[in-house]
């Protein structure tokens, strides 16, 4: 198992926020785990270095990662559109036959 570890220093990247992130606790005496330093991610690889099986972080980095998730976690805005926003947008697209504000157009002409 030790040959499957690859160590490198990295910035924390945000994952896809389309799913909830869960934390699972495992007693330390039930697993053999390397000890990451702060600022270090240990990637556990499968099939040489082709597939990542797990990434081990220092607890401080994990806390930072969780804090970033809280700050930046979001869903695509389209999923948060309100009925009013959609209605107004569609009405705007169909505005071609709408009443023309001739006074304002006059202001825009030379």
């Amino acid at each position, binding site marked *: 198992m030790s040959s499957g570890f690859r160590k490198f220093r990295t*910035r924390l990247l*945000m994952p896809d926020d389309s799913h909830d992130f869960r934390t699972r606790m495992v007693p330390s005496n039930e697993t053999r785990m390397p000890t990451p330093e702060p600022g270090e991610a240990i990637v556990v690889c499968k099939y040489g270095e082709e597939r990542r099986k797990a990434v081990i972080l220092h607890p401080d980095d994990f806390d930072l990662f969780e804090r*970033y998730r809280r*700050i*930046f976690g*979001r869903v*695509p*805005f389209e999923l948060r*559109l*309100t*009925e*009013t*926003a959609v*209605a*107004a*947008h569609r*009405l*705007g697209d169909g*505005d*071609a036959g*709408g009443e*023309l*504000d001739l*006074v*304002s*157009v006059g*202001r*825009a*002409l*030379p």
Partner: protein
Amino acid sequence: MRRWSDDGTPPKAIDPIGLAQELCELEPPVCTVLVEAYLRPVVLLQDRPQGLLGDALALAVVSLDDLSEPQRERVCAQEEPSLFHLPKRPGKYGLDREVAVDLNGLLRIGCEALLPRAVGRLDDNEMRVIGERLVDHLDVDLEPIVARQVEERLQQLTGPEML
């Protein structure tokens, strides 16, 4: 969408796939389509004083007339993040009716399609609010920029040895 022919035949309706197939057979791959034109107010998102790009970015402005009364009230109370309400203030906004800036209505407009004079303006604070909301609406990921700025600020405060 209607395709214009210069052989005297009337314009014919065409869908984007049909148009793409026709264009692939043309040399050069250009044709003329008929489009409807109408006048509508827009909010320009930035000054491009030199006009080097030949176009401008703008947000559509929509009328509130056809919304239901509860919907209109929510827009007027600025409770709809996608619709920035502009009350009827001809002296400031230049329009003779209340409208809303549609943050889902991002437009790229050729400068030649813009009338020459702006009828009004939004102040810096209003444009800042629209800018902040636009980042959200376009799902722009500011995280790397913010994280870098936070790191730089921390570094200024604590010195490089603390990071």
